């Protein structure tokens, strides 16, 4: 056993144990780690936002290079601060409307492209997929899965009779997908835990190499 002489390793190890203590319920150690984490992350965020966005994207081009068009986003940004003034709090709706409109405009074509068109591309059966029996079988499995799953998410009809049968096949597909995803993600989470245990046992206590 070779305890680390590095002060920051000790700080990291103790904070890790403080967070793990939550497994036994809420306690002052967890509260300390939680409040420290939130405080540090907010302070860090402010610094990051200033150096990565505010300074290079607004202050330097506007006041340094005279790009006056940036007055528009500056005013929109300042409108958010109106929320602190009761009389003018309605002003906050202007940038919100802008952001929601912009967000929807950006998101809708992207979602159509990624979640509709690309999925249709991947699910279509082509003459090439018929060339080999295995690609043919799997493409049929995929096509049935897509059709039944989409039908499960059809809200305009009551799920009864044949629609219920098809929707039930869809939910079986969905659950198989979730099962695979669950196992995959659990493995990733365990690797995160192993990373923390390695830090405690190797970097801090020095009992493993």
């Amino acid at each position, binding site marked *: 056993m070779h305890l680390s002489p590095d002060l920051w390793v000790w700080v990291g190890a103790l904070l890790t144990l403080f967070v793990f203590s939550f497994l036994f319920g809420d306690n002052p150690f967890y509260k300390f780690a939680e409040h420290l984490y939130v405080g540090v992350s907010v302070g860090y965020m402010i610094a990051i936002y200033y150096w990565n966005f505010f300074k290079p994207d607004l202050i330097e081009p506007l006041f340094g290079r005279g790009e006056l068009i940036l007055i528009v986003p500056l005013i929109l940004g300042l409108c958010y601060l109106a929320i602190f003034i009761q009389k003018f709090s309605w002003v906050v709706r202007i940038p919100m409307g802008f952001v929601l409109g912009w*967000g929807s405009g950006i998101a809708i074509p992207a979602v159509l492209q990624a979640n509709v068109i690309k999925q249709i591309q991947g699910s279509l059966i082509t003459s090439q997929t018929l060339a080999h029996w295995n690609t043919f079988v799997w493409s049929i499995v995929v096509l049935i899965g897509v059709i039944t799953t989409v039908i499960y998410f059809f809200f305009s009809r009551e799920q009864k009779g044949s629609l219920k049968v098809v929707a039930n096949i869809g939910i079986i597909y969905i659950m198989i997908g979730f099962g695979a995803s669950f196992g995959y993600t659990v493995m990733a989470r365990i690797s995160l835990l192993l990373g923390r245990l390695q830090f405690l046992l190797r970097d801090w206590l020095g009992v493993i190499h």
Partner: protein
Amino acid sequence: MSFLLAVCFIFGIGPPEAVKACDRPNDAGKCILLSWKLSPDDAGLKSYDIVRTDAFGKDTVVGSVPSGIGSFTDESVRDNVRYTYRVVARQDSLRAESVASGIAVSRAQWFNKARVNVLVALVIFSFLVFYFIRHARAGRKLFIRRIAGLDAVEEAVGRATEMGRPILYVPGLAGISQISTIAALNILSEVAKKTAKYGTDLLVPNRDPIVYTVALEMVKEAYTEVGRPDMFKKENVFFVSDNQFAYAAAVDGMMVREKPATNFFMGMFWAESLILAETGAATGAVQIAGTDSVHQLPFFITACDHTLIGEELYAASAYLSRDPLLLGSLKGQDWGKVVILAVLVAGSILLVLSGIKGLSFLHVIYSFFNIS
């Protein structure tokens, strides 16, 4: 030069041939695509150097690719400038240079032809949505089937009221441009109306500063709409931290200290989903979750009482509010799905038929869907 050619000839290094340079189609400019036929001695080569000559005759080596590769993308060009390219095959100190390509000029395109399919889909969906919204506003009744998770909302709010405990609403961790966040905020509005009616506290911790301002406004408006603006507590809708796990740690702490009777997790979630849902389950709260994140849904299904899967989250606000605008758009989406299914089935049949001699004109469907 003649010496080099002689060396190449003696050692048998052939130059690359048929160098072609062209503007990359459907892009924002500043890019030229190159392709060439590999040197006959490609197996023994080290690399290919790409030499660009600009309008003033200045040569610049713009990149290098290993042997076996016959293409390169030059993203260091300026628009509307004429360039030619040569490809130099290299093996240690030996070089074999191709003939220069034709002139290539990079230009930005106004319209991405590869996305015509997206435009068509957008027009169809928009038409369906507007049609059904008009239909709904005309007062016609639109049916929506029962969604189990949403029937529990009323019950969950009632439970919190009876127990005298608050309700926790987490509107996901994504920004406002995520559709799931917008859906989560719509549901928040409906939940806020119910808590206002019942006089139950509603806690809304936020990770994104913009989502926070929108959530604050929506909750305030919901309380005003049901005639209880006095019940609205501004401090209950708050920003925590934009750090994912700092946010999760704080919300966990809130769950064990405030002991909310009901937890809502709606919107986009990442690795914190199980941390939140597991802690909530340990406190004995009724939990209703909804997300379109495929990787997080299994965790919510295992740890929550009710889970809205994918599109059920989008349908939720229409289901809860019965607002004609939302009902109409939900109906439009539903019929959009019917169009998708029809395209899938008809497209598959036509693509299979395109393999038959005489029906090869059906190959146009490949290009419409960008299938290679």
